[in-house]
């Protein structure tokens, strides 16, 4: 990934669709609530393990949750 490239995600959208709180998602993924908040705001890009965990949690493919955008 180059410096100008960005990674967006649909975590907030998917979480709200399912009516899950940030705390609940954090508990299920075994990360802090702040991590979920930062992920949703796009301030933090997850590790590949966490990205897979999130996709698995929502029952989707990784590319359906995380969108890679080239500059």
């Amino acid at each position, binding site marked *: 990934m180059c410096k100008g490239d960005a990674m967006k995600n649909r975590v907030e959208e998917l979480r709200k669709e399912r009516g899950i709180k940030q705390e609940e998602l*954090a*508990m299920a993924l*075994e*990360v*802090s609530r*702040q*991590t979920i908040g*930062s992920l949703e705001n796009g301030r*933090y890009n*997850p*590790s590949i*393990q*966490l990205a897979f965990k999130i996709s698995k949690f929502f029952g989707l493919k990784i590319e359906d949750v995380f969108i890679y955008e080239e500059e």
Partner: protein
Amino acid sequence: MDKGGRTAYILLIAGLVLVIVSVICFYFFGSERFAYTVVSYSIFGGGFGLLGDGIGRLNASRLEKKDPERMRLINIEKNDERNIAIDEKARAKAYTLSIYLFSAVLVILAIMRVELKALLIVLCADLTVMIYSLYIRLKLYKEM
């Protein structure tokens, strides 16, 4: 007793022993030579360090039995990948700052015309940090 609790008690006992030994050393030999005072103070510091670590571990071990859910939350916070990334980034920035600080200290000491021995000690510390960084970098190049 679980492994964590056992380690905590071992650290507590070792810390207590070191503190007692340092007090005895200081009481009997402290006034004889300056080096003995330094050694006994160092043992005292190390002993209290172990004691503190032991108390912390003992608390964690008790909390794990008493309130496993809270302990799980603490472990999540501790092992959270964002927290780890922040911690590593902060350390990396602090390392960069330390390189500049060491250089500044060396220049200041040279201007102050301090003894060459003192200057060499600071220089050795600076070089050790840099060489260690290089070693870790090469190790990670091979591993990753």
